[in-house]
């Protein structure tokens, strides 16, 4: 356990040390463990939908393959690339916070936010295209001129899962953008330096997690079955 002899002078030196922690190393470890535990809950939260996807994919594999006719792989691919770049810029932000480079922290955070917004805009186009083609299960889904009418019903299951998963993912992106704005405001006040960068690190973990979820969503939803030239 942390040595306690000089606990008090550590408290004086570091204003951000919370009273109930012995020293900032213990506080950072606690924050990291807490963040990882939270990410585990997110893994299981998305896990429920992945379980449903896995089951319906095995039962209705042809119906799911028929839905790839409507999935725009180019938009999905660019989105994946955009998210990977945002992960890079987020990692750079964390790195420069650890090295107390105040300017690069602000720039990379803003870069991450730009990539995030680009992702959401592309997502908006995909959703509106699906709305126009009438593929929203329940609300607007014309089973009559679905391109393989016999699979119209099972395809609704996939589109339900598609909107549930990508919707939840987009919601997490929006929350991430909110957190990033908070970080940018604090970074401009030079709040983060080598001895105190926990918020940047934790929101970085959250952002990378959201990217990992998309890394799994993209192949499972967009690259189903054999799709000739799209």
């Amino acid at each position: 356990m942390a040595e306690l002899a000089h606990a008090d002078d550590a408290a004086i030196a570091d204003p951000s040390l919370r009273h109930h922690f012995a020293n900032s190393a213990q506080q950072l470890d606690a924050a990291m463990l807490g963040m990882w535990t939270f990410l585990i809950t997110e893994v299981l939260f998305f896990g429920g939908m992945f379980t449903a996807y896995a089951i319906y994919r095995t039962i209705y594999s042809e119906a799911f393959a028929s839905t790839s006719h409507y999935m725009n792989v180019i938009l999905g691919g660019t989105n994946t690339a955009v998210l990977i770049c945002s992960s890079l810029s987020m990692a750079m932000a964390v790195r420069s916070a650890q090295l107390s480079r105040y300017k690069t922290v602000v720039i990379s955070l803003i870069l991450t936010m730009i990539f995030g917004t680009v992702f959401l805009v592309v997502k908006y186009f995909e959703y509106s295209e699906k709305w126009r083609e009438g593929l929203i299960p329940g609300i607007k889904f014309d089973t009559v001129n679905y391109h393989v009418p016999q699979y119209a019903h099972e395809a609704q299951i996939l589109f339900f899962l598609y909107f549930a998963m990508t919707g939840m993912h987009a919601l997490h992106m929006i929350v991430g953008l909110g957190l990033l704005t908070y970080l940018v405001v604090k970074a401009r006040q030079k709040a983060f330096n080598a001895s105190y960068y926990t918020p940047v690190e934790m929101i970085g973990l959250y952002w990378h997690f959201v990217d990992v979820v998309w890394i799994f969503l993209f192949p499972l939803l967009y690259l189903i079955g054999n799709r000739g030239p799209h």
Partner: protein
Amino acid sequence: MTSSHIPSTKSLVSVWAALICLTWTTVGVSYIELGELNVVIALLIALIKASLVAWIFMGVRFSAPMTRLFVVAGLVWLTIMIVITSGDYATRRYDNRPKSWTPTPPANTSTKPIPPAVGNK
């Protein structure tokens, strides 16, 4: 990630490059018709990408063994859920497997023969 371990820019950019190439490969592979294998390859590539992001970007490389245990525990619980639930569906009898049929309305009492369903060729 204690403060002594900071990832170098080189390692970050190389991970980024690897992720982009892997995305290209997974899209490319999906155009080749391999039947069941398509899903397996797509998931494998996604797994590699995810572990790359976790190992370098999320700093699992430097973090304490307890954090790594937590990450592994989370993935183990996810596999428990997926494997056991889909195990049930894989081994179910044909009768009990979900099939798409709708609850049918009351019997068609009119004597007129039923026209074929609208929309079918």
